[in-house]
């Protein structure tokens, strides 16, 4: 078995974000790291929308990012710390729109290791040096400079190691143009490692250490080291240094040390200032819980600066420092606003705040004000003795604020993010859909959602209006060549034409010169200011002064089809003749003297747009009833001569020639594509050679069941093609590559571009008798998302076999559930405490639920109707009970009636895993499944992490024990048990009497239930320990699973063993077999292995295209959706794996990680080909492409076609 790994949806979680002028232009950009992918975002200051400029896989894990700018430069560079053991400096090249690796310096082993730097990065604010540090001991300093040719240079590293020091954070200290300085937060463990009394551990000091890079001596010295708060976690740079032009200081320099519950300002030889982190004045707040700052950003404006610090609850605090030159007078903090908890905050000079939220959608906020003069209480370091440092070990008096909705910020844009996907199902539930949807349980806490993902582009409809009849076609046209917007909408009906004018309103007009008594075949704005209408009886050329020149069809013939552009018109007559017209320089339409007889009825015609600066387009494509497409010359030397011919498998229904950019074929110029839609719903896309007119590189695709209609439109100023069949598709260029994506919209019968003031980039279409105007807002987003909000983090969900509902369990640790909140409030009210209703009723999806100590849970069972996209019912679990697993079981003891069994536990603690009691709750479905009735609760001794229906009974993994239960009157009745599993059973799969048990740490075990003897026996397991996170059965003997470290692997049991076990009626044979390696008597063999780089949360064996092959679809915690596609032939495997080998050498990773060692992070890659790497073939320079294709004995087109075919046939994407 060989598999092809293809990512359909790249990870959307943002691990880190940095801001800078990366393209060197005035505009600021944001570079975000998705963990394994780098993306450049460009927020538009006018519209406040964020657009992706470029996104690239790095085939490595990005651990840290930093931006820096050389002194006096105008362009920022990005430094990347990764698991490659190398420091990489990236430059964004706006010309080629790609990241260019400027420097790559190796310093250590690959992998995210304890003492190999890469975890933290700190740059000198003047861009003179960078420090890269590991979690422990190692710190390296590189000096950055320019050479004579103004190129960036990097020195060899200088060491600033400190043995047995754990590093919490590092930051560059702003010292102006003095020697660069770095601050580090370190703890030394050597003493606590030696002291058995634990005294040294208790007194271990966290040191704030300054490292100075002496540029003269080329040496790093430990300049200053002082103990600070033992619970410090984060350092923030404070501006400092003198301006060259004046004596004024930018700031006092130094760092803010963010600790639990307070923030300390510190600098060498300067008094400390301590301020509290304000707490929410919420009566439900847990007073014992500390608060830390998890994200921070400093912003410098002209002559001032401020900090925004975010607490782990999402509250933003504005911190300001009053200073006189270098002397700090006061440090002040006040509440600013509450936004989602961020992994990074970025402030843009244009007045935006980018919040890269750690889970869920990302936001761009616009600053409305800076919170300068509101009545929010401000807390200053001066209000406590010695600036709050009188006794550093005692906490400061608590400061409180009232959380409130956004005041200083306003949402400008929201970027959808699937992260984290915790469970998913793939099925086709929606009506009128021929491909399955992915249902993903996403998000964390109160911001969780259940999302329906459909492959296709999202459509925004602006107008939908009913028409008197059913039109055949619609066009829009401008009046003059240089008009910005369209003026008329022309609708063609069976017996007439309706013209609408576009103005403030859309209304019918009569005096346009168009013939209204006949249907229309084509409409064109021709020449400088004339209009053209083709109808079955002739061609009307409407001049700007409303004079009409009409060409009439010879007696007894009609026009059947026509094609036009700005200067040329071709019509096909019912006598299978072509008539060609061309506009002369006086604006007269002249007929070419000869007519071309085609010999077969013409069904479709197309000419491309007139190329810039040319008189005409030289090629005409003609589709005839005899199942051919001919390319005919329109060149003056060889007018109407046939150049080439392509045979088809069905009569064509529509042809469209369009010049579109596809960088995989030609990087600099648009390619001329001839798209041929057939009557059987197949689309052929061929490339027309501009020199000899031959058709090459044909690609086919099935679009739908209806004959295809093709329309050339403009999307975001680029040509695109709408292909209409039983589904509508859009063929467009995005980030220089061609995409072909369905549009999620009603079926369209005809469509055209539509440009008016209100919708400059719109489309107009007819579906039945309804006229619709719409636009496609987000190109490149291939999955349309529809969300249903949830209350807590979703854990698992299942589908009901007969009704369409989803049953979903949610649970959150360390929060108060709704019931607990109500009872606590009631108690407080009883005590006579005044309760601030406004604070209590703040929406939890923004502010989160009240926090509680470890061991507190909020949980519910939810019934969802995925078709209507709404929650049907919610059952809250009370008394600190939380749900962990669920299954629908047809108990044979109840005649196969379906029951819902939910595995729950009370007072669960995670580490070590324990609970006061577990329960298996058995529910009956009532009212068609919209309600659940609790039948009984069965106690268990551990958390039931997995349950499953098995032969009319229930099988449950309760801690280490696998048990089979049958239903009883008051309880589930335990029938049989096997307790010999490694740590905890997290997944169950079954076929026949076989049960596949996924253990939390010990991989997958094969067990069998022998009914005659009522035995549950283990007969095979894995050689390797695996931290299983998701499993699925591929077939009776094969299982695919993902583990916690981002691997996906396939294990297979030997068919002979399988048979032998099945043939043993009582299991006595297995019982007495000798175990191997202290485990089961048989071992499975690993037949495929791959590191996908994201923690796999669910795997399904599904077919994604109607009638297509089954693939393995997986989802990852960072929002990845990928597929593993089995290869069908040995030739394909050889071909693609050779291509992969070439790609490995050609396409070096942006972070300097070796692709092969990345994909074999923990175990060498086995029998899986990296499709994501192969697909970057399309982005290679043409010379490299042809070199690789030559090595493979193929043309570049053939390689690209093969890659596309693999993607399309497997996933339809």
């Amino acid at each position: 078995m060989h598999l092809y790994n293809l990512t359909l949806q790249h990870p959307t979680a943002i691990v880190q974000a940095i801001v800078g002028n990366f393209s060197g232009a005035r505009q600021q950009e944001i570079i975000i790291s998705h963990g394994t992918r780098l993306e450049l975002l460009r927020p538009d200051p006018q519209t406040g929308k964020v657009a992706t400029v470029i996104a690239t896989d790095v085939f490595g894990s990005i651990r840290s990012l930093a931006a820096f700018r050389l002194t006096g430069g105008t362009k920022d560079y990005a430094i990347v710390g990764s698991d490659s053991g190398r420091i990489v400096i990236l430059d964004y090249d706006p010309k080629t729109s790609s990241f260019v690796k400027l420097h790559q310096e190796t310093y250590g082993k690959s992998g995210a290791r304890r003492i190999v730097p890469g975890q933290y990065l700190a740059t000198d604010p003047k861009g003179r040096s960078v420090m890269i540090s590991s979690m422990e001991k190692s710190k390296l300093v590189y000096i950055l400079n320019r050479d004579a040719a103004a190129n960036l240079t990097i020195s060899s590293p200088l060491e600033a190691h400190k043995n047995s020091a754990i590093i919490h954070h590092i930051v560059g200290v702003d010292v102006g143009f003095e020697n660069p300085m770095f601050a580090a937060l370190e703890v030394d463990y050597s003493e606590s490692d030696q002291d058995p009394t634990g005294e040294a551990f208790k007194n271990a000091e966290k040191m704030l250490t300054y490292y100075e890079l002496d540029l003269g001596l080329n040496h790093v010295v430990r300049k200053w080291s002082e103990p600070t708060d033992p619970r410090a976690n984060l350092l923030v740079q404070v501006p400092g240094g003198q301006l060259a032009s004046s004596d004024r200081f930018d700031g006092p320099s130094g760092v803010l040390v963010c600790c639990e519950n307070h923030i300390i300002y510190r600098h060498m030889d300067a008094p400390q200032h301590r301020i509290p982190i304000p707490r929410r004045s919420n009566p439900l707040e847990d007073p014992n819980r500390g608060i830390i700052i998890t994200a921070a950003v400093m912003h410098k404006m002209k002559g001032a600066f401020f900090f925004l610090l975010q607490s782990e609850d999402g509250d933003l605090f504005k911190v300001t420092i009053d200073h006189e030159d270098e002397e700090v007078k006061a440090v002040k903090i006040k509440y600013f606003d509450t936004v989602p908890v961020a992994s990074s905050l970025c402030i843009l000079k244009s007045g935006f705040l980018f919040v890269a939220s750690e889970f869920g959608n990302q936001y761009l906020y616009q600053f409305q004000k800076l919170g300068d003069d509101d009545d929010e209480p401000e807390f200053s370091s001066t209000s406590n003795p010695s600036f709050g440092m009188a006794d550093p070990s005692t906490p400061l008096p608590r400061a409180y604020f009232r959380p409130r909705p956004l005041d200083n910020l306003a949402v400008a844009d929201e970027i959808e993010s699937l992260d984290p996907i915790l469970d998913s199902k793939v099925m086709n539930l929606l009506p009128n859909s021929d491909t399955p949807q992915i249902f993903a349980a996403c998000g964390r806490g109160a911001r969780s959602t259940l999302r329906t993902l459909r492959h296709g582009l999202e459509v925004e409809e602006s107008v939908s209006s009913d028409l008197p009849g059913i039109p055949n076609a619609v066009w829009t046209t401008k009046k003059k060549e240089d008009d910005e917007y369209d003026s008329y909408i022309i609708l063609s009906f069976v017996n007439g034409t309706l013209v609408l004018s576009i103005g403030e309103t859309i209304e019918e007009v009569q005096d346009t010169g168009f013939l209204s008594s006949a249907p229309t075949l084509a409409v064109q704005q021709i020449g400088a200011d004339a209009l053209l209408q083709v109808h079955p009886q002739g061609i009307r050329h409407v001049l700007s002064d409303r004079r009409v020149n009409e060409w009439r069809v010879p007696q007894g013939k009609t026009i059947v089809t026509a094609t036009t552009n700005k200067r040329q018109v071709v019509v096909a007559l019912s006598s299978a003749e072509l008539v060609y017209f061309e506009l002369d320089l006086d604006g007269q339409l002249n007929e070419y003297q000869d007519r071309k007889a085609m010999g077969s009825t013409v069904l479709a015609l197309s000419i491309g747009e007139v190329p810039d600066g040319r008189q005409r387009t030289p090629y005409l494509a003609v589709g005839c009833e005899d199942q051919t497409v001919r390319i005919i010359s329109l060149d003056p030397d060889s007018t109407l001569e046939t150049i080439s011919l392509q045979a088809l498998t069905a009569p064509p229904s529509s042809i469209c020639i369009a010049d579109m950019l596809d960088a995989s074929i030609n990087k600099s110029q648009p390619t001329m594509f001839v798209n041929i839609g057939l009557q059987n719903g197949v689309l052929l896309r061929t490339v027309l050679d501009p020199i000899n007119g031959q058709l090459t590189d044909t690609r086919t695709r099935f679009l739908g069941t209806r004959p295809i209609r093709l329309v050339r439109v403009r999307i975001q100023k680029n040509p695109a093609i709408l292909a209409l069949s039983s589904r509508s598709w859009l063929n467009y260029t995005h980030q220089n590559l061609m995409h072909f994506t369905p549009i999620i919209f009603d079926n369209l019968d005809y469509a055209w571009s539509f440009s008016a003031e209100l919708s400059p980039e719109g489309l107009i279409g007819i579906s039945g008798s309804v006229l619709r105007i719409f636009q496609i807002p987000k190109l490149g987003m291939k999955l349309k998302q529809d969300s249903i909000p949830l209350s807590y983090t979703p854990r698992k969900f299942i589908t009901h076999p007969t009704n369409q509902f989803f049953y979903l369990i949610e649970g959150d640790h360390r929060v108060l559930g709704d019931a607990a909140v109500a009872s606590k409030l009631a108690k407080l009210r009883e005590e006579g405490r005044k309760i601030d209703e406004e604070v209590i009723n703040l929406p939890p999806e923004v502010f989160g639920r009240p926090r509680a100590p470890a061991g507190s849970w909020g949980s519910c069972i939810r019934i969802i109707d995925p078709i209507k996209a709404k929650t049907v019912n919610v059952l809250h679990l009370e008394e600190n009970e939380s749900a962990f697993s669920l299954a629908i079981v047809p108990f044979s003891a109840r005649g196969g009636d379906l029951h819902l069994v939910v595995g729950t536990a009370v007072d669960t603690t995670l580490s070590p895993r324990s609970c006061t009691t577990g329960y298996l709750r058995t529910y009956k479905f009532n009212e068609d499944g919209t309600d659940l009735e609790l039948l009984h609760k069965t106690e268990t001794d551990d958390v039931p992490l997995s349950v499953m229906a098995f032969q009319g009974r229930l099988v449950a993994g309760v801690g280490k024990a696998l048990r089979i239960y049958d239903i009883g009157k008051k309880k589930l009745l335990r029938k049989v048990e096997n307790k010999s599993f490694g740590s905890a059973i997290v997944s169950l799969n079954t076929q026949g009497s076989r049960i596949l048990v996924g253990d939390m740490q010990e991989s997958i075990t094969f067990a069998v239930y022998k009914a005659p003897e009522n035995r549950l026996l283990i007969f095979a397991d894995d050689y390797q320990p695996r931290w299983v996170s998701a499993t699925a059965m591929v077939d009776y003997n094969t299982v695919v699973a993902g583990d916690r470290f981002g691997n996906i692997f396939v294990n297979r049991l030997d068919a002979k063993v399988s048979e032998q076990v099945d043939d043993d009626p009582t299991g006595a044979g297995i019982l007495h077999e000798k175990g191997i390696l202290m485990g089961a008597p048989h071992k499975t063999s690993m037949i495929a292995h791959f590191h996908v780089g994201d923690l796999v949360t669910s795997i399904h064996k599904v077919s994604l295209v109607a009638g297509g092959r089954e693939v393995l679809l997986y989802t990852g915690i960072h929002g990845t959706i990928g597929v593993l596609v089995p290869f069908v032939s040995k030739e394909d495997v050889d071909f693609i794996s050779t291509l992969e080998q070439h790609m490995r050498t050609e396409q070096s990773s942006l972070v300097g990680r070796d692709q092969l060692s990345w994909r074999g992070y923990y175990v060498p890659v086995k029998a899986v080909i990296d499709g994501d790497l192969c697909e970057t073939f399309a982005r290679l320079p043409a010379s490299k492409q042809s070199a690789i294709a030559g090595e493979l004995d193929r043309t570049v087109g053939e390689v690209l076609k093969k890659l596309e075919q693999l993607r399309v046939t497997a996933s339809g994407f």
Partner: protein
Amino acid sequence: MSSELRYTANTQLEHLHARYTGTGHADLTKYEWLTHQHRDTLASIVGHPTLTSYLAIADGEAIGRTKFEMTERMLQPCGPPPKKDED
């Protein structure tokens, strides 16, 4: 082991231990080994974004808090060292 290595091995080993924290040796105690293992694991968790997300979701904490607590635990992951025998 070649004769050349036999003479240089000791000095090299010392050098290795100084350079690569966490390298084991013949006299490693169980406690030291375990502490190294835990520190390596904790550092690896903090270094892998997917693992920190996973733990943060399970524990109901912010990622920043999870990373902080993991780093704090590196100081003494397995409790105080056992008392040394007197001899």
